[in-house]
């Protein structure tokens, strides 16, 4: 129901009522006096007619006198005299005592008795003069009616004529006085009316100006207050750091909102926008539905606001706001909703009339929290890495990282190479295999189990690809993802090393931690570590004897190749060459196998690396059987090969005599890598063995000058 505050508008209501009352009074008076003036005008007319009748009567008397004896003119004059006499008499009596008479239109009109002093006096005097004439004329009319002789009639007429001639002018003057008197009364009434109208209108105008002045001042005051309040609201909405806006019960957004809201939401304006459309593009569908239900509850008076506070789904919600560059800006916003109730409706009353929404940009805080969490997780991961690299020789680690990045780059370059047929895919796979296998060997030698594991997964994926018919580019997605992961992890290790290096520069413990950073010479891999790890995994006992590695001067590029070669050969020796301790005992050998690694510079300047084990040697039949299973050669072909050619099969990609694939063996790429690396320096490899006694690989690398010439 509409409630109206009369107190506030009492003054204006009274003033307007007074204004209307004054206008109505003036109108009524005007109406009444106008009516009276109309009556007075009638009286004035009739009084004027009396003047005229007095003269017409005299004239009729003369006419009758002169027409006496001529019947036609006599009758006309008598009728005229009779008419003028009756009308004058009736009207005069009506003026004196009030009564009816005929007007010019021959209609009956009522006359009030004349009340003014002068009028009454004039009428009294007129009556005194009229009465004798009236009697004389009555006798004339009776005589005509009774048919008396003309001589008798003439006597009566002469009597009336004589009286009339004597008093005619007096009667005329008296009727004139009456007319003037009545005119003067009417004029005084008109003057009074004008005065009343003037006073009434003046009062009304005065009242109007009072209203105008008073209420304009009040309006101005109100406007000033409203403007001040509006300015305060504008200042608040401009300054406040939160996004503020109101939602109406139809879930549309109000017209007022804070400037910060536009900044937060990256919008230009929110006019005619609904809450749903505002949220739909920035939060998930599920959050949107929950938020709208939640706001709907706030408009329900039966629901307690405090009880549903936890249902608000828009706390620290991630929103993605499209920007003009085609990207998205991710922010974290908190939306708080509060009921707005007006006077007369409290908590216990009906639901909210509006809901105030406060939007706070908590991106910085949330990001900081997440960064802290990420840093913590990163630190934990780094700590785990750290524990593994702390046991690793710093120089070796630096070399490993540097070489690994090179290997990753070569893998990536290989992936990048366009392929035209299945054979190209196979070549690509083999080339990648060699790189990752060498990487795995390096990681294994350094005891970096995580990298060894990642490399192993990489090799598994490559094997899956090799077994896939009709390869296409998208089949390599997993490989690309794995390469990315390897690179990321390696970068993390590098960062860790850099940090440690900076720490060490203070403590001066290990100044050459990272050759990547410092550019120092590539060291030899730690073969003792490698042998320890691989032999323990293979459940074998091994004694490693090395010579010449530290003594013979070797350039970095050669050392890099020899590192790869020696790692593969030593690992193969442990995995394939040496027997298990029980088997060795059975063969009358020491349970601990022996591996000799020897590096020497020959008189011709070339380098010779020999790796020899005292294991089972090579088994031609096993090699032949494996080569047959590879499907590249026929049985007859293989049977016809002499031993030297058969042994060369070992250097084919995919060749392995291991029964199953493990981290140490079974892929068949180790010897492939060895051959590739040796070839890169124009070296050569030779194999000698005695079944059940030993197997020796001798690698010869020509001196740099010879290499250049050969190249």
């Amino acid at each position, binding site marked *: 129901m509409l409630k109206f505050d009369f107190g506030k508008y009492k003054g204006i209501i009274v003033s307007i009522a007074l204004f209307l009352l004054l206008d109505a009074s003036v109108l009524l008076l005007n109406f009444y006096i106008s009516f009276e003036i109309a009556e007075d005008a009638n009286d004035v007319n009739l009084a004027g007619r009396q003047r005229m009748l007095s003269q017409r009567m005299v004239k009729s008397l003369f006419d009758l006198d002169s027409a006496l004896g001529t019947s036609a003119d006599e009758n006309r004059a008598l009728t005229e005299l009779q008419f003028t006499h009756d009308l004058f008499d009736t009207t005069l009596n009506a003026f004196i005592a009030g009564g009816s008479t005929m007007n010019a239109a021959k209609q009956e009109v009522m006359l009030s008795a004349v009340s003014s002093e002068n009028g009454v006096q004039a009428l009294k005097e007129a009556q005194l003069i009229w009465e004798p004439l009236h009697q004389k004329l009555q006798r004339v009319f009776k005589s005509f009616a009774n048919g008396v002789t003309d001589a008798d009639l003439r006597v009566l007429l002469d009597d009336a004529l004589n009286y009339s001639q004597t008093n005619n002018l007096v009667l005329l003057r008296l009727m004139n006085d009456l007319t003037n008197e009545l005119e003067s009364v009417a004029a005084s009434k008109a003057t009074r009316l004008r005065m009343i109208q003037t006073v009434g209108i003046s009062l009304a105008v005065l009242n109007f100006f009072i209203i105008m002045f008073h209420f304009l001042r009040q309006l101005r005051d109100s406007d000033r207050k409203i403007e001040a309040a509006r300015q305060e609201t504008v200042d608040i909405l401009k300054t406040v750091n939160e996004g503020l806006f109101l939602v109406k019960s139809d879930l549309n957004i109000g017209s007022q909102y804070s400037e910060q809201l536009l900044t937060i939401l990256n919008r230009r304006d929110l006019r005619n926008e609904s809450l749903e459309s505002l949220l739909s593009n920035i939060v*998930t*569908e*599920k959050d949107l539905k929950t938020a709208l239900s939640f706001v709907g509850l706030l408009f329900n008076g039966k629901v307690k606001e405090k009880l549903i506070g936890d249902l608000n789904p828009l706390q620290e919600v*991630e929103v*993605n706001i*499209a*920007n003009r*560059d*085609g*990207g*998205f800006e*991710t922010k974290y916003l908190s939306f708080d909703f509060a009921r707005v109730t007006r006077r007369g409706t409290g908590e216990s009353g009906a639901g909210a009339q509006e809901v105030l929404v406060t939007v706070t940009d908590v991106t910085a805080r949330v990001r900081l929290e997440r960064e802290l969490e990420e840093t913590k997780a990163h630190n934990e991961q780094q700590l785990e890495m750290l524990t593994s690299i702390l046991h690793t020789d710093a120089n070796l680690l630096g070399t490993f990282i540097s070489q690994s990045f090179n290997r990753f780059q070569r893998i*990536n*370059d290989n*992936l*990048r*190479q*366009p*392929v035209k047929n299945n054979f190209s895919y196979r070549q*690509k796979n083999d080339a990648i295999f060699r790189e990752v296998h060498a990487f795995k060997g390096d990681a294994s030698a350094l005891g970096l189990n995580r990298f060894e594991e990642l490399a192993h997964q990489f090799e598994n994926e490559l094997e899956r690809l090799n077994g896939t018919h009709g390869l*296409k*580019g*998208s089949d*390599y*997605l*997993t*490989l*690309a*993802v794995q*390469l*990315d992961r390897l*690179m990321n992890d390696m970068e993390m290790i590098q960062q860790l090393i850099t940090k440690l290096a900076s720490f060490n520069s203070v403590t001066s413990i290990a100044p050459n931690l990272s050759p990547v950073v410092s550019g120092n010479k590539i060291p030899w891999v730690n073969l003792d570590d490698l042998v320890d790890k691989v032999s323990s995994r293979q459940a074998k006992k091994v004694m490693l004897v090395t010579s010449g590695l530290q003594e013979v001067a070797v350039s970095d590029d050669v050392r890099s190749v020899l590192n790869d070669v020696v790692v593969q050969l030593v690992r193969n020796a442990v995995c394939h060459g040496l027997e298990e301790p029980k088997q060795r005992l059975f063969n009358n050998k020491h349970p601990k196998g022996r591996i000799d690694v020897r590096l020497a510079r020959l008189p011709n300047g070339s380098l010779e690396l020999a790796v020899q084990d005292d294991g089972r040697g090579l088994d031609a039949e096993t090699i032949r059987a494996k080569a047959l299973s590879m499907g590249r050669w026929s049985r007859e072909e293989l049977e016809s090969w002499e031993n030297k050619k058969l042994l060369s099969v070992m250097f084919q990609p995919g060749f392995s005599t291991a029964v199953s694939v493990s981290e140490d063996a079974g892929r068949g790429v180790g010897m492939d890598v060895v051959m590739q690396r040796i070839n890169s320096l124009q070296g050569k490899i030779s194999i000698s063995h005695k079944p059940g006694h030993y197997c020796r690989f001798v690698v010869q690398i020509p001196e740099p000058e010879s290499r250049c010439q050969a190249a």
Partner: protein
Amino acid sequence: MSEKTLQVFIDGVVRYFHHTQDKDVKLGTPYLVENSSPAAFDYTGIIGVSGASKGCVYFTAPSALLRHLLLSLGETDTNSENMVDLVGEVANTISGNARSEFGKDFMISVPVVVQGAPDQIHLPRSMRSYVIPVYWKAYSAAVVISLIQ
């Protein structure tokens, strides 16, 4: 970045070419490229991605491929404006496919077409992108996916 996510964006490009007369589009093996030197041909249609993954995905092609593609679509006017429209259309197909596959988890923006390589506004810094070469007839284009999770 999971290979499933990468696959969805690649499927978008393949889907576009399947709507053309010459459907014989081939994908090269994916490789990585540093964002500091982004891979791009003459025209590049970029879509911004946010939500579960953040960054951008773009389709980049040389003008020769686009000119040929326009002609095969029956458009004889091969001016720059039409090439921009064409790249935008491919990017639109990619984003449409991603929207239908990922639903509300991924926020996909309206494509923006630039000439040359995307700038730093579009690419997440200090990370690598996946480049998937796209071969159509004798031309090479690429889908580049640069997202962080």
